């Protein structure tokens, strides 16, 4: 009796921590979400509903340009990072041999260097050695460096359990390496690639600490938001944050639905369900 009571207390304590953490994470987001739909945006309880803020946000041409630049930056960096990370993962698992440790260290090193240092180092390199002004391409490249390591980890969790004998089987039956890749490997690993693309896209789209130093005068959503934040928070910023949050939730929700319906597994391995 005593033991079950103790066990139950432990359970409630764990669950309480979980709930409190979610509250801590989501209260600010919900608060500004509500604020962006309300006239009384600093304290929207109860809210007086309005869509004016969103109207102003979407009507503002600066935000429109910034949005398209961010989109470009996100797609470019994510495509580059995913492609390179996929190649690197395949190389690591199939061809690296003895030197795998060395390559792996280089490949995940960007994870252990703060974003702002990547940004500043690239700024110095561009400014001093290449004598380049700030531009979108440098920002894409620098974001791809940072995204590369994240993409590598995501793709690696997917490929960890990949059965390479499938490739060997295809080749035994006469398929060329490229045909093997496109007809056997790719169809089995694409969820990992898509997951890596989505995550690196969202990261590059929202990045400030790297992009800020490399963009020059090119506005992106985070840099415009940063500029506005310096002059005090405006309701448009609440609306902007809410819009981006909604899109991110939709993206991850899509991943989750694909996973539930069993269409893709994004590195999640159901056979290890009973791990703890």
């Amino acid at each position, binding site marked *: 009796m005593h033991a079950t009571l103790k066990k139950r207390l432990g359970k409630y304590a764990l669950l309480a921590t*979980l709930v409190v953490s979610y509250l801590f994470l989501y209260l*600010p987001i919900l*608060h500004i979400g509500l604020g962006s739909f309300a006239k009384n945006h600093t304290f929207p309880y109860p809210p007086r509903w309005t869509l004016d803020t969103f109207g102003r946000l979407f009507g503002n041409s600066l935000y429109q340009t910034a949005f398209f630049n961010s989109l470009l930056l996100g797609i470019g960096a994510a495509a580059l990072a995913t492609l390179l990370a996929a190649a*690197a993962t395949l190389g690591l698992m199939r061809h690296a041999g003895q030197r795998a440790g060395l390559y792996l260290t280089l490949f995940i090193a960007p994870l252990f260097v703060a974003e702002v240092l990547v940004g500043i*180092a690239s700024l110095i390199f561009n400014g*001093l050695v290449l004598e380049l002004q700030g531009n979108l391409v440098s920002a894409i490249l620098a974001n791809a460096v940072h995204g590369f390591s994240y993409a590598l980890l995501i793709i690696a969790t997917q490929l960890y359990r990949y059965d390479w004998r499938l490739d060997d089987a295809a080749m035994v039956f006469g398929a060329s390496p490229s045909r093997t890749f496109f007809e056997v490997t790719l169809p089995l690993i694409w969820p990992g690639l898509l997951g890596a693309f989505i995550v690196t896209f969202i990261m590059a789209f*929202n990045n400030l600490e790297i992009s800020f130093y490399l963009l020059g005068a090119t506005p992106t959503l985070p840099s415009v938001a940063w500029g506005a934040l310096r002059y005090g928070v405006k309701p448009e910023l609440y609306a902007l944050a809410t819009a981006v949050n909604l899109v991110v939730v939709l993206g991850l929700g899509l991943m989750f639905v694909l996973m539930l319906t069993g269409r893709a597994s994004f590195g999640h391995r159901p056979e290890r369900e009973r*791990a703890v």
Partner: protein
Amino acid sequence: MRRRWAAALLLGVPTVFLLALFVVPLLSMVVLSFWRTENYHIVQEWNVGNYVTLATGGAYVTFLIRSLVMAGVVSLVSILIAWPVSYAIILYGGRYRLLLTLAFAVPFLTGEVLRVIALQGLLGPLGLINAVLMALGSAPLRFIMYTNVASAIGLVYLYLPIVVTVIYLSLLNFDARLIDAAKIFGASPLRAFVEVTWPLNLFGTLIGFALCFIPCLSATLAPRFLGGPNGTLYGMAMAQQFGESGTWALGAAMGVVLFLTSIVAVLLVGMRVNLRRTGFTGLGRG
């Protein structure tokens, strides 16, 4: 022959990419830190003046110590929160485990600026907490408005998601039958945790620590918008060298200091760990 081509392509291209866009820029930062800036112009003259300034200028030493304390406290607090959270998800999450973990990733993915905006909505003078307090008729909390406490809360908010994800992944790959085995042989739940669960997930915990400590050490946004007049951190001071003051060489030296400090901190923590005994399962090559 063809195999060797594939290897060269698959490993070579990413390696060249990282060398050109990651290693070489970092090296050029090191080179610049030994030059100096004069009136917004860079003078290519080898000297250690920047480092002398950083070591003797009292403010910079204060900023560095404050950053170290801040990053250490924030990482420890994050780990203390993340452990019960990931454990609860693993134990009681059932088929919604993945959704629960993804829910932690959502704020992490929405970008630092937007989350700092959200935090100002929570902690600021007109934020949720103080507005509720004032609506209830009590005085606003001074210690969460533009102070180091506000910065710390902000940094925990920013980096808790990544710590949770890392510890969750570590626990997910941990074989819980080992706990059952320990209990069958008479260990109490506490002892099973201290002697089995904790040491076998130590590697994941340390990765989580590093991935929180490093960005916190170089934080620029949270202290700027949440910290007060006494809240300047090293990363924020560094960013200013590239903005308002235009002293790039000094900023580069600060970058080198930050880089070395984070490497040393991670090595100090990492050296105490015996990889084979901490649940490190190798590089996953089969």
